[in-house]
């Protein structure tokens, strides 16, 4: 799973933003600002990713 995320351009230290969320614990639409990709992540996977919330610029 980690490999798959790497391949899609998601790496440790990237800046991401959550753009949309499906209803009923649905998937998240995550936009990676560092590599400029949008990916839909299932809830199970999204839950396992540690993020740090940055103050709005």
């Amino acid at each position: 799973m980690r490999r798959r995320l790497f391949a899609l351009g998601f790496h440790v230290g990237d800046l991401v933003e959550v753009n949309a969320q499906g209803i009923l614990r649905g998937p998240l639409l995550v936009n990676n600002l560092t590599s400029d990709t949008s990916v839909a992540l299932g809830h199970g996977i999204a839950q396992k990713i540690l993020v740090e919330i940055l103050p709005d610029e």
Partner: protein
Amino acid sequence: MNNRFPIVVFIGQPNSGKSTLFNALAGPKAETSNFPGTSIKHTHSKVNLEGRLLNIIDLPGTYSLNPSEPAEKVVLTHLFKEKPDLIVNVVDASVLGRSLELTLELLELEYPMIVALNMFDLAEKKGVKIDPAKLEKRLGVRVVPTIALHGRGLKELLEAAYHCLDESCPVSSPRWSKDVEDEVDRLAKSISPDFSIVANRRFTAVKLIEANETFCCEVLEEINPLLKKDLDRAKKNIEGKRHAPAYEVISAERHHLALKISEQTSRVERGKHLSWDEYLDDILMHPILGYPILAAIFLGFFFLIFKIGNPLEGILLQPLSSLRIYFSGHLGSGLLFHLVDGLVQGIGGGIAIVLPYFLPLLFFMAFLEDLGYLARAGFLLDTFMHRIGLHGKSISPFILGFGCNVPAIMSTRILESQRDRIITSLLIPFIPCSARTTIILALVAFYVGPVWAFGFYVFNILLVAVIGRVLTFFFKDPSPGLILEIPTLKLPSLRNMLIKTYLQFKSFLKFAWPILIGGSIVLSLLQFLSLDKTFNRLLSPLVVHGLGLPQGLGITLVFGFLRKELTLIMMLQALGVDYKNLLTVISREQIIVFTVFVSFFIPCLSTFAVLWKEIGKRVAFLSAGLSIGAAILLSLLVRLII
């Protein structure tokens, strides 16, 4: 493989436009769409370009050379087996940073290579200005900006390709940070010459480090314990320095290098305003609004096809029935008449009943695909897929299934787990494909009303959910989570949509129509020999007593196995009426029961065959049994309710 022609391989990340570029060069051959993973099979083709023959291979998209899906493994096999003379790396310029990761990995192969910087216009629209010359310098290979959709940059790309084929264009692998590079280097040196080296020593060493535990290391332990020791040491050294798994370190190295290059070679000029597609996406993917929009789009889709097909069907049927009356007047009722009648039914039925719905359906499907909406539908529906125990990635085969079940089952190759493949493949035959949609439109919508037809569709989709829930109950296994790339919304090009419609129409002409005509003639012959009555009598317990349908329809159900549309054409033939007078011999309720039965009763012959080939004999028979059971149960139920 024919070695006289240079082998050129197209490779790139999913949805980077390889197939569009391939089509632009070779003429319409590969199917394209704005949906990651459209090309599941590779397309091979010998192309004559400006007087020279090339063997071009369009490979399925892959994010990296460390495959995790069965479809991606195809890519590797090809790269290594066929030893391409030239790699054309197709890069989506609008997501340069990420796309370069694959480019860097390909450079490690040190095969001759050029880069097609595709969708250059899209990148500019996004406010990203890329300097191809600078990029060329950083990568050390030719970079040609292209817009495959409009055919721009193709000439330059060809020139670059021929240049590389005629003269050598050396490629050298990019270098990473020194600490990692030292370890890789040491490992590369320790690989003995008799070990099978892929591409070059360094690449082999890197791939050994990146490889999966079970795959590389247990095998390697057996065949080359010395190398295994070196490998373990290299991994340990890297891990000690970076405090992360070695494969992650290597992937991160590529990532950072890719980002660095992309930053150095492009300038972002985007202001603060949202571009139209981001704004639209906010609405389309809205957690609440998204669903009514999804429903509205499909409802509109459905009505539009009906509104186009319905009057056409009426107009086209007129001459067909006059033709039949003409023949019955002139040829009497002998063998000749029956043969001619079968032929007319087969050809005319195809033109008048199937095409008015089938063609618009293909066209609008192409529109939704190219727009990029289908991936968004997958995102919205993922929640419900989880409820039935599958994840959103199964959505893409399902959506393909609305076109035709056969490619849908093939595309289950994008699913990583065998369990998901089996469940998805068992469910696909329940998805109303274009043939069945045609039946639903031509029978239910035409005679009973479009609202009923739409209701039928909704019911059908609910049924898929219910059966899915039941199936996942039997196959309990955690399914891997969803990671699905969402492509940018693109305004579809009319040309591309027409090409796609044409490609599918051509395969309909080639494979389905002969069956329709042949089937009609066979039925005519059976009628002439009065054999149809024997069949019908055999089936009558089910058809007449169970389903309450006219006895004459029994035989059409048998033929439905060949091709679902055949049932539709044969129905008129078997009942001996023309299209306008159908309601005199069969009631509206009977039409619904009949449609329910035909839709579900068995996967058609091609679906059955592809299930057998792709997943296995057991699944194919299981699917047939499941369908027959469901069809009988449901049509009985419908008969009781209506």
